[in-house]
């Protein structure tokens, strides 16, 4: 759900050559962690996500979490003796052929690197092993179910996987009383991630799936598919595809008079998708027919206010308009990831990932007598006083399982991407499994 298209790349030969060169460079500089383990130099968090290509919106979304966290950490005096934290972008281009050399380059050339935001589904399979081999903690925004039971020690995920969103969509449709549904999903690997579970979940709850369409991305027309959809008479459509594909499909559905209620995955709750589809079908129709699932992140309360004040303080430095990130659960998860990692370093009194890594889970886990903290400054102050802390961030309590995944609740939002129309806990969603 966190990516849409793994496009075949005709640029692979050049990328392969670059990969070889960068691999050699990486080998040459392996283990150069001195800059981060001693001294006072800046520490770097990398946003390793697509900044170009079809999923170019993912990178800015993660960066919108990194920048306010880094600014607040710097304002609190930094981590240990390192007074400055930097957010560095590394463009994976959303394609494994480009992502592998980009990851190698990042590892090889950034000796101050202490954590990674990413990878996304587009490049996770190819690059998670690389970061893991380099002992680099990463907070994947990938939704791929293959990481549900991952054995990668340095991989963490605090947003729910793709298959969970499918069950959540089924529960929502059931609650709304839709008797039948069609599933229209892009035929790329990440769009397909929630297809199986939404179909299975809806059937388990007594619904009827009348049509399953896997559509190729970015074609000029889907009118034949829409004719088939109309013939099946679904009462609701479950959907995910990249913004352009969805815009074309739904605009043509409207032209043919077959636009009806549709429920999107969290891939559809992002500003580019909402903008593309809103323009294509009209804002009024989008408001009338659409809801999208997204990992639940509260938009009220103390932690939300902390997050909000911090992102507003750096509003000019994030992708504009800054307000698009205020309720974005993935940006909030990125903010949490940086805070948690930074506090783990403080607690471990080390910036060496192999030393502070276990503290990431420890600090998120409730323990008797632990002081609950909501950002880095609070946590650092408590640790300095010798207290035990539990970090509860903008996305709520983080409950890591044995595979370092934190399954959470889901909310359903309307066409503005932030107004919640329903929320389901993990327990409520489990009835569809």
């Amino acid at each position, binding site marked *: 759900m966190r990516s849409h298209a793994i496009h075949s790349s005709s640029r692979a030969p050049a990328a392969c050559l670059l990969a070889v060169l960068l691999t050699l460079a990486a080998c040459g500089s392996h283990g150069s962690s001195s800059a981060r383990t001693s001294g006072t130099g800046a520490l770097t968090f990398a946003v390793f996500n697509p900044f*170009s290509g*079809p999923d170019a919106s993912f990178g800015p979304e993660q960066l919108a979490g990194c920048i306010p966290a880094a600014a607040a950490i710097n304002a609190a005096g930094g981590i240990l003796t390192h007074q400055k934290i930097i957010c560095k972008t590394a463009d994976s281009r959303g394609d494994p052929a480009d992502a592998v050399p980009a990851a190698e380059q990042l590892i090889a050339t950034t000796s101050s690197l202490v954590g990674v935001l990413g990878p996304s589904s587009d490049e996770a399979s190819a690059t998670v092993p690389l970061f893991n081999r380099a002992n680099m903690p990463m907070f994947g925004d990938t939704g791929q179910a293959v990481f549900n039971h991952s054995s990668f020690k340095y991989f963490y995920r605090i947003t729910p996987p793709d298959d969970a969103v499918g069950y959540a969509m089924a529960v929502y449709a059931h609650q709304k009383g839709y008797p039948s549904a069609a599933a229209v999903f892009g035929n790329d690997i990440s769009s397909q991630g929630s297809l199986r579970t939404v179909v299975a979940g809806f059937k388990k709850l007594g619904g009827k799936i009348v049509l399953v369409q896997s*559509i190729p991305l970015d*074609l000029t*027309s889907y009118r*034949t598919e829409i*004719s088939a959809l109309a013939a099946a008479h679904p009462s609701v459509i479950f959907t995910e595809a990249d*913004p352009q594909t969805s815009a074309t499909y739904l605009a043509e559905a409207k032209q043919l008079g077959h636009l009806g209620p549709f429920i999107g995955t969290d891939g559809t709750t992002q500003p580019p998708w909402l903008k593309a589809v809103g*323009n294509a079908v009209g804002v009024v129709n989008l408001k009338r027919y659409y809801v999208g699932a997204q990992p639940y992140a509260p938009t009220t309360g103390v932690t939300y206010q902390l997050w909000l004040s911090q992102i507003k303080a750096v509003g000019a430095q994030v*992708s504009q308009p800054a307000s698009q990130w205020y309720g974005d659960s993935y940006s909030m998860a990125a903010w949490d990831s940086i805070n948690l990692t930074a506090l783990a370093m403080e607690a471990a009194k080390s910036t060496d990932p192999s030393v502070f890594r276990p503290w990431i889970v420890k600090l998120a886990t409730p323990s008797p007598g632990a002081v609950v903290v909501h950002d880095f400054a609070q946590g650092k102050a408590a640790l300095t006083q010798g207290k035990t802390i539990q970090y509860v961030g903008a996305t709520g309590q983080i409950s890591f399982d044995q595979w370092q995944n934190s399954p959470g609740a889901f909310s359903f939002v309307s066409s503005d991407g932030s107004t919640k129309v329903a929320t389901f806990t993990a327990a409520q969603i489990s009835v569809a499994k």
Partner: protein
Amino acid sequence: MTGSLFVQSIGFGLVTASILALASVGFTLQFGVSNILNLAYGDLMTASAFAGYAVNQAGGSIPESLAAGAGFCALASMLLNRYVYRRFVRHGTKLFGMVVVTLAVGIIIQNILLGAYGATFFSYSFSAGSQVHVLGMVFTTSQLMIVALSVVVMILVQLLLTWTKLGKAMRATAANPSLAQASGIATDQVTDLAWLISGALCGLAGVVLVLNTSAFQSTTGNDFLVIIVAAAMLGGVGRPTGAMLASIVLGVVTEVTAGFINPSFKEVIAFGVLVVVLLFRPTGIFGQGATVKEVPT
């Protein structure tokens, strides 16, 4: 119901074919005259779509956007060939090297667009119009306009190539540039004009493509490139008439496939047709036993 879907699929296929024909005829014309496989073509389409978008957002009508897209791309393509591609050719860059050069140009264009417009999606302000039923097929008025535009342009291209001095000079340059030059044809000027015309087709294709997709971004044209190249190959590379016919075949086959087999196999079946045809006619439907030539200097 099935018969109805079949007829509707053909109608939908004709719309796809119309867009594809505009694009593939321009693409194949460039290759025919210059022997350059211009893989920046899709990105030029996107750039044209943005040019048309600028006019549209400034209050221009769709015909004005089409004119802006066509004009922009005509000029950009001609200048690109004259000041970039031709220089590489004169420095001895061969066929495969030129493919890499065009690929690089495409990446540069795509990233310039990304930098200028950002990683988001755009839509023209226009109404697709009402539904029109023709022989059981369903169109919107804007789609009928696209089909009509494509038919008119294809007729004009055909007339240009077969009945005008310029068309004959272009064909002579395509067949044997050295001989054409020796015969008094100003091949550089002819090539410039060919790139102007093919660029205009590329620009038109870019604008109608994004009108039909409803939303576009900096990579939209490039996503369409593979099917353009397929249509050009199926028709016989360098053969505009072949590209027109191949566009209809691919457009209709993909839509009928979506209706009766599985939408996922749309492109699979289209490329299956390409492979089967090339197996029996390696030079494409209209190819005439041509062999791969080096880029004429």
